[in-house]
């Protein structure tokens, strides 16, 4: 059997082994015959349309290929999409589990409106028209009355929506995009952005000689499956892998070195490696000379020295001399000899050093952003920036095509998103919202949550319950979700949105040294349209296929925007009109058609070669490789037309044209450089210095709030590491996947035998873990896979619901009793765990597990890092054996104490204004940047 070259990426697929092919040949995707697996060995033929889409479970955006039964219109299965350049036809467990999510008997099939008090648990069906009219009316009123800041959209899983929604919210003229990023990756992002202006690393794992991970990319994280493929590819070729992670992850188990540092000491460990490289001269001198802003450092910080690279090298040696392996051992507990070993391996790797940190310690610790900075410092020292086998900045390995007609940003700054105390916060201070409202900083007229579950995911969820319960603070709350969640329970509208195979999104992720796009599409609609049916709205196709009134989200925003501005008087509607049919409402396929026709280099030509339109090409293949082998983007010369009229600053060497930097002169040639103020890699951050953090202007080590010295083990104190994920689950989006929950459904506390003996517990016993604001009770898992003094608990489990048959997926939630025993004092007790239930899926009667895990996040106070704004997840806790009244899953929280802790951490911040009276450095990325005029802090918000 031969496979036509589908795509450049497809050619990388190995020849089918043993005569068997991995995938049906693409020319037969429109009509593929396979035998029914259940009827087998009787040969019952089933005919399928194979329609590509993109997985929606994690952010990796792996390709999926839906097998839609042409007769029943049921999706039989999701396989990988072999033409997808990132995932190359392969998936993790969460890919095929998409099928559970589509056919989940618990899913919400029509819009619901609250009846009675919010959170009271009574609902009535409502028509989409009614819901849209009410929401649009409230938004219109707010816009007309100048209450732009009272509209907020809060999302969990972003994707192409970042651009899509930027269009929407800029058209509305609001500053209303709130994300989950500050409970996730903001610290790591900040660390990278201070270096190179882009906020993620993109390691070229496949070509690395050494892979240094502060992550668990062989099991979780952005971008697990694509990265795991390439990490192991390199390892099989002889690359060495070092994993720095306090607990033994599966990734660490596969590594050549597992270093288990005391949580929060990682920067010390990394700087010790950097120091060894510096002291032993094992770094790429030429790269550091050309591409770091060492001159700026010397001028600013060492006026005593001549501005020569040799002087800088001397200064470096002095600066990091204290970071000996022995010092790092004292801080981290990792043997100095191992640190030396790893440093040597790194030194040998040269510029083929691939590294990654995404959440891990950066998300856990005060100063976590300096860990990312220390890691990137090693990359910079080795000259491994954007090299083959090295680590590139993310944006160079992504393709973000421009949409039709981008509205200009609004001239509004929401202090509920970006309060002035956190001018450098890398994303919105999302998790502080209840406290900001409690302080009277504003209110919300319309609050959307979308695939976001702050009550459950965020720290201090009880403060969210209090906030959402207060209709004076949150006047309307619409939850856009395919499934019930803890947060949906406290909404006014629960609006069912599609899962991965029921949406449109244009995805691009930095999975490797290439740039690609992936097209998420509603496969049932596509299948029905191929049969000649037509629909105005995707939800109609979903209804026709038996899913219910499940909306496609892009269409939701189009419909809503038209209702906000029906006559176009607000200047909003025009952005939601068809580029092909003037004055008519934009159809979702037109939006993508326009992008594919205008904004993706090479796509129209590739489509033409197959006799297809660009849209038809993307509907057929679901992905397109824009550019492969992307390396050394910073070295590219600035194109001559851009240089024309540009002026090179004699001191900084930055080339600027009309006030905007276009490049930097390096050894006489003007190169593209990096999107930083110096256009170079900023070893020294003038921004940090100017914005009141001079002591952190170079990569350094901030002792964490849970550093060894802060913990008195004799008093029962330990560090709780609550951040790790499991390979099979994804935050709160996999509770509807029975196959995943069957594999993983409980989150016991990992405890080293030494600690278990000290506390007097063994595996299966209960343990009480007390934080500053409350406690939780969970079972113990005694293991040699965790450092003594540290207790670890996966954040993936502990889902709950308040009503027996609504409000939560019964595959994955415990029924709980939640009550306020005194103002602000909340007590949760599990009434029962997961139980078999009746449904049209016979498997629901076969549920054999009982535990749903324990919801630890409720007991965490907010701990915002004063620089990055990231919530510092690790908790200083006291562990003890539970009392006679304590039961598995018990939780107690005092929100008065949460507010107290919030104020303590707030006091660590160094507020705006910064230079120029600004709220935030203009150059620093922000998700949806408002107009520069909104950056000025003029005596008030």
């Amino acid at each position, binding site marked *: 059997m031969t496979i036509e070259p589908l795509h450049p990426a497809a050619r990388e697929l190995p020849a089918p082994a043993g005569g068997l092919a991995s995938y049906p040949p693409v020319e037969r995707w429109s009509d593929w015959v*396979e035998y029914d697996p259940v009827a087998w060995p009787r040969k019952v033929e089933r005919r399928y349309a194979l329609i590509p889409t993109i997985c929606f479970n994690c952010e990796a955006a792996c390709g999926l290929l839906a097998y839609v039964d042409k007769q029943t219109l049921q999706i039989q299965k999701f396989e990988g999409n072999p033409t997808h350049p990132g995932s190359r036809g392969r998936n993790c467990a969460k890919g095929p589990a998409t099928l559970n999510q589509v056919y989940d008997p618990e899913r919400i099939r029509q819009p619901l409106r609250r009846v009675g008090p919010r959170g009271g648990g009574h609902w009535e069906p409502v028509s989409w028209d009614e819901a849209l009219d009410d929401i649009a009316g409230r938004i219109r009123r707010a816009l007309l009355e100048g209450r732009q800041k009272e509209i907020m959209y809060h999302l969990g899983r972003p994707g192409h929506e970042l651009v899509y929604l930027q269009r929407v919210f800029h058209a509305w003229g609001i500053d209303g995009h709130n994300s989950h990023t500050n409970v996730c990756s903001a610290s790591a992002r900040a660390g990278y952005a201070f270096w190179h202006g882009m906020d993620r690393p993109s390691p070229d794992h496949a070509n690395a000689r050494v892979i240094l991970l502060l992550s668990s990319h062989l099991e979780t994280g952005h971008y697990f*499956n694509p990265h795991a493929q390439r990490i192991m590819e390199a390892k099989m070729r002889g690359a060495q892998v070092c994993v720095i992670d306090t607990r033994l992850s599966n990734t660490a188990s596969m590594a050549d070195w597992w270093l288990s540092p005391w949580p929060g000491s990682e920067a010390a460990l990394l700087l010790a490696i950097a120091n060894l490289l510096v002291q032993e001269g094992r770094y790429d001198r030429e790269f550091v000379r050309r591409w770091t802003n060492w001159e700026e450092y010397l001028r600013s910080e060492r006026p005593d020295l001549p501005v020569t690279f040799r002087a800088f090298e001397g200064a470096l040696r002095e600066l990091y001399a204290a970071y000996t392996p022995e010092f790092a051992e004292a801080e981290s507990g990792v043997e100095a000899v191992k640190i030396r070993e790893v440093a040597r391996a790194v030194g040998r790797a040269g510029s083929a050093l691939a590294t990654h940190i995404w959440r891990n310690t950066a998300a856990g610790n005060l100063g976590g952003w300096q860990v990312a900075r220390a890691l990137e410092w090693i990359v910079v020292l080795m000259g491994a920036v954007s090299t083959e086998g090295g680590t590139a900045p993310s944006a160079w390995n992504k393709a973000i095509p421009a949409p039709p007609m981008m509205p200009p940003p609004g001239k509004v700054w929401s202090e509920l998103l970006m309060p002035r105390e956190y001018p450098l916060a890398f994303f919105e201070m999302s998790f502080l919202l209840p406290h900001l409202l409690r302080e009277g900083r504003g209110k919300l007229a319309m609050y959307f949550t979308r695939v976001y579950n702050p009550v459950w995911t965020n720290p201090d969820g009880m403060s969210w319950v209090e906030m959402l319960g207060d209709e004076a603070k949150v006047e309307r709350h619409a939850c856009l979700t395919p499934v019930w969640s803890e947060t949906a329970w406290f909404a006014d509208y629960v609006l069912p949105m599609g899962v991965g195979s029921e949406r449109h999104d244009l995805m691009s992720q930095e999975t490797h040294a290439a740039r690609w796009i992936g097209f998420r599409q509603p496969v049932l609609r596509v299948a029905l349209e191929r049969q000649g049916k037509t629909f105005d709205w995707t939800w109609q196709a979903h209804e026709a296929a038996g899913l219910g009134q499940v909306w496609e989200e892009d269409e939701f925003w189009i419909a809503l925007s038209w209702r906000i501005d029906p006559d176009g008087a607000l200047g909003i509607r025009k952005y939601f009109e068809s580029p092909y049919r003037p004055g008519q409402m934009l159809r979702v396929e037109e939006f993508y058609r326009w992008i594919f026709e205008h904004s993706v280099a090479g796509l129209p030509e590739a489509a033409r070669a197959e006799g297809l339109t660009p849209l038809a090409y993307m509907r057929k293949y679901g992905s397109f490789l824009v550019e492969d082998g992307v390396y050394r983007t910073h070295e590219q010369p600035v194109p001559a037309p851009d240089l024309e009229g540009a002026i090179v600053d004699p001191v900084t060497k930055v080339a600027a044209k009309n006030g905007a930097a276009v490049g930097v002169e390096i050894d006489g040639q003007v190169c593209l450089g990096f999107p930083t103020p110096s256009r170079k890699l900023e070893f020294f951050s003038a921004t940090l210095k100017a914005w009141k953090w001079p002591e952190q202007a170079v990569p350094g080590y901030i002792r964490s709030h849970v550093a060894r010295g802060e913990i008195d083990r004799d008093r029962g104190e330990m560090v709780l590491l609550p951040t790790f994920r499991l390979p099979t689950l994804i935050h709160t989006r996999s509770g509807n996947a029975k196959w995943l929950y069957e594999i993983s459904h409980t989150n016991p506390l990992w405890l080293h035998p030494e600690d278990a003996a000290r506390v007097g517990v063994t595996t299966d016993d209960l343990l009480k873990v007390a934080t500053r604001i409350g406690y939780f009770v969970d079972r113990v898992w005694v293991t040699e896979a965790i450092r003594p003094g540290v207790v670890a608990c996966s954040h993936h489990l502990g889902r709950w619901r308040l009503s027996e048959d609504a409000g939560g997926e019964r595959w994955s939630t415990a029924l709980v009793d939640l009550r306020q025993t005194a103002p602000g004092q909340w007590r949760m007790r599990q009434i029962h765990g997961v139980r078999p239930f009746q449904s049209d899926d016979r498997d629901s009667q076969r549920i054999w597990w009982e535990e749903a895990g324990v919801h630890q996040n409720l007991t965490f106070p907010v701990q915002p890092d004063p620089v990055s704004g990231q919530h510092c997840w690790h908790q200083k806790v006291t562990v003890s054996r539970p009392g006679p009244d304590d039961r598995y899953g018990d939780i107690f929280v005092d929100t008065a104490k949460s507010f107290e802790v919030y104020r303590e951490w707030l006091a660590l911040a160094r507020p705006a204004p910064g230079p120029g009276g600004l709220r935030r450095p203009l150059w620093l990325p922000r998700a949806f940047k408002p107009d520069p005029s909104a950056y000025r802090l003029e005596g008030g918000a």
Partner: protein
Amino acid sequence: MRYGFVIDQRKCIGCHACTVACKEENRVPLGAFRTWVKYVERGTFPDTRRYFAVLRCNHCDSAPCVTICPTVALYRRADGIVDFDGARCIGCKSCMQACPYDALYIDPDTHTAAKCNYCAHRVEVGLEPACVIVCPEQAIVAGDLDNPSATIARLVATEQVQVRKPEQGTRPKVFYLGADASALSPTLQKTSERFMWAQRSADDLDLVRMVAAAHDSVEADGTLSRSVYDVSHLPRPWGWRVAAYLWTKSIAAGALLVSALGLLAGAAEGGRLTGLVAPIVTVLFLALTTALLIGDLKRPDRFHYILTKGNRTSWLVWGAWILMAYGAVALAWLLAALADHVGLLWLLAIPAIVLGAAAAGYSAFLFRQAEGRDFWQSPLLLPQLLVAALVAGAACLIPLHVMLGGEPGKLAALALAFSASLVLYAMVLLAELFGAHSGLDVRRAAHLITRGPLRRGFWVGVVGGGLALPLILVWFGTPGAVLASVLALVGLWIYEDLWVKAGQSLPLS
């Protein structure tokens, strides 16, 4: 052409994608798995590591499940795939006992056996199995082991590969590359009562606790690995019905067997006891045996498939024919006795003895085909079953003889036969449990009975009540002999029960 798998554990990251893709492809119900990933951990912090193993059907070239399957519901295809046909399966669960790898389960919807079938329905259209294509690491390699240019054949030829339990002689076609030995061998693992992110099923947990209680000091060895993630398998597929079947069959076999032996030895004349009662007991207990066998099927409605779709290699099928033949002889015996035709009885005595022994003993060959269960592979099983039939036969004839008011002289002869066979039985039992064990699992199973959680039943019910006491009581007149017989029968039943339980208590994977 021989399809097989190479599982490259050097690359496998333990992500469970294969598990879920398989469930999706084959609609595997909750609680069952056709492929799964086991995790074990070993070492002391910070020198700790976790190891993974992808476990599934081995598509053995010499597949015990195919041999034992009574209805050819399991079969090896010409291309080496061991496939199954649920429409032929009667749900006897013998395949689950035969497979040393825990590969089979009973589908809760169809009540028939299922397992990995190499996605034969995909192979049919030229596609690799679902687990192969989903694997992020391409750690599962499928292909033709006989094709030297196929990747799989090259890997098997040029890399150090291992298979699970090669000593079972099953010729597995799933080859592991770079696997940790302990992840593949349950005897190198310590079990846990829960896993790192999952519970064990309640049934599974009971069994694990029981077995853990019986493990000896070897288990404290720090070089053993701890099982930290695994899936549950149906614990002890064969329950009380199978133990009861062995017992009723002993009685059925023994009643006529002892009578026929008595007839030939001149100790009986074909009177009411040997001529009428004994065959009636045999026929009744054969009926009971059959009822128990059918009752234990997950698809009792298909019991006749054993005869109509019989697999000639399966001792389940041979057993069925033996039992039927034996039943026919017993009926003939009864008719001859009713007709008072002693000559015919003499003629029937030899077939009665041969078929009685066969009825008692064929189970030894059946359990021998249950290759997954090492404890059941004992060479003493055949003598044990034969002697048990003698004990059961004598023990059941004694009270009947008394009830019929038989002569004391004949009672003495019966008592002598009873005692002699009971002594023999005790010797076989002691040799089996305390003699040299052929392997760790055999020793552990024996320990479960003699020292572990089953020990009370053994020492009190079997050794005390079923052997020692009857051997004494039998000499204390008629009531003593009757009581001894009843106690011995109870003891036999208890032992069958312990033996069936213990044999299935140790993990296969």
